């Protein structure tokens, strides 16, 4: 089976005055379809940087990346935007919902912007996702009127609206209390289990990592250990 993601020798240097800061110094990574992967590492080890590169939000200094069989590291800006829309989902530590829109509109947004509006089909899909994250009673609430955990659940539903093959989550439970974090994590496990969506979750939280099927440890800009791969 083709892997969902293949990264080969990914490097990233940040210019820093006259010098460069090397953050990633040759990351090799392969994710199979349906995996639930925790990305671990001390603060500053480059987890967020790697996630951004894999999410096509940041270009690597060198290295090759294939997602769903397509080469993506050499795409144009436009091509990257299009690819993100078709294939990827994001969940960030801060939810970043659109404050002027309802929960349902927030979920529908990534699909509606291309479809020219919230079509009945998109609405149905968004409503279904909100039902699955347990927010059917909050669909018409504007974002600021939801609790932190609810907002993050809306963000997960939003990440799934375009039926991505890979969801990248950067400390999705970082801002949440124990109970909300548990709910959010359980949700991702469920989506992973039921729909076979691959999740790459970057986290500091041992508890989160323990629930994942595979853990990748990042250190000094490289993959230090990789356990539980299928």
């Amino acid at each position, binding site marked *: 089976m083709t892997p969902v993601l293949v990264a080969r020798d990914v490097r990233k240097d940040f210019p820093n005055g006259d010098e460069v800061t090397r953050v990633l110094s040759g990351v090799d990574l392969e994710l199979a379809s349906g995996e639930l992967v925790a990305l671990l590492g001390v603060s500053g080890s480059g987890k967020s940087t790697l996630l951004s590169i894999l999410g096509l939000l940041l270009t690597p200094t060198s290295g090759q990346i294939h997602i769903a069989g397509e080469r993506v590291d050499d795409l144009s800006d436009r091509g990257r935007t299009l690819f993100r829309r078709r294939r990827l989902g994001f969940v960030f530590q801060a939810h970043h919902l659109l404050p002027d829109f309802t929960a349902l509109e927030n979920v529908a947004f990534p699909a509606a912007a291309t*479809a020219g509006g919230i079509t009945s089909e998109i609405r149905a899909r968004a409503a279904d996702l909100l039902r699955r994250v347990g927010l059917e009673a909050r669909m018409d609430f504007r974002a600021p009127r939801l609790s932190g955990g609810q907002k993050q659940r809306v963000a997960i539903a939003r990440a799934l609206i375009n039926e991505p093959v890979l969801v990248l989550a950067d400390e999705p439970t970082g801002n949440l209390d124990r109970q909300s974090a548990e709910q959010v994590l359980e949700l991702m496990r469920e989506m992973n289990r039921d729909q076979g969506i691959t999740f790459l979750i970057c986290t500091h939280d041992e508890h989160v990592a323990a629930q994942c099927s595979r853990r990748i440890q990042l250190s000094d800009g490289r993959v230090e250990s990789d356990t539980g791969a299928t």
Partner: protein
Amino acid sequence: MFAFTVARRYLLSSPGQTGLLLAGVALGVTVFVFITALVEGLAVRLTDEVTANSAHVSLQPQTRTARILEAPGLRAEGVALVSTFQRQQIREWRQVVALARAQAGVAAISPQISGSAFLVRGEAVQPVSVTGVEPESLDVVSPISTRIVEGRAQFGADGILIGRRLADELGLSAGQPVLLRTDRGAERLLTVRGIYRTGLQSLDERVAFLSLRTARPLFRLPEGVTNIEIKLDRPEEARALARFLEEATGLRSTPWQEKNTSLDDALIAQGQTGRLIQMFSLVSIVIGVASALVLSAYRRRPEIGIMRAAGVSSGFIARVFLLQGLMIGLIGALVGCATGYGVSAWLASLTGPDGDPMLPIAPERGGYPAALVLTTLGAVLASLLPARAASRVDPLEAIQQ
């Protein structure tokens, strides 16, 4: 279009700010409309005053100096001699009048004999400019018969109409005789039938009206006339008609604008001042819209970042901001046009103690299409910069903020 929905939602999300911005745009448009209505109204009033009391097109014979060159066989002195004795005249004036009358937009025509003369009463002598008219055409160039303050607007066999000031200078009143001596050396005792006051100094002080029939022997013109004066329904069409008549008749044909070049200059200067103010109000609208939207784009960086991360195109983001500019421009312009019209109409309705309007405003000439188009265009232009900034937000940077 979804971008439209988003733009509208953005504008409605802070009604106070949007309201203030709209008020600013509307105020700018109000100024634009008011100034336009004032400048136009002033132009209309000035033009009306001039065109009400002058002919719109004047026809005269071509000056003869040109003909001297055309006739090499004749001695120049001979021609000059002839033209001194023989008045320049329009002999075929009846055809010319018929031709002019057949043109669309011609309101009235007055064939005239104009010349210089003296009015003599006892010791007193006053130079006058005499206008011989057909009695029914007396009011063609300026209204006279309605301005009679003494006697009646009738010529009879030997009648003359003179202005109030001239009458005062000669101590004349209606019904009294006065001697008219023309520059052709003819003289006749006439009766003052009526005295008028038009308020125009030149008319009241230096002009006298005769019937064409009375004028003929006095100016030794048994058939012809010296000039034909034409009034139009629409004075602004004078140039076109003048050009046509000049070509058709060979007569020298002068539109009123050429006799009033200082009015033209004044109107142009006034128009330029108006345009300057219009431009300033547009510039202030553009600056206001641009700064408000630049601020909004900055404030919304994180959400723009998340939209971009989710695969929303930069073009969509740009459209959201351009549409905000468009809506602000359009709504602001509509509101501004309405208030501008309201203010202008109210000011136009104010009258002074004499019952005349105090300000010469033309509320229906507020330049509404221009205000609408320019404001909307300006607002869209103003949103280019914020739209560009918003569409170039780097998703990663915005999210990490």
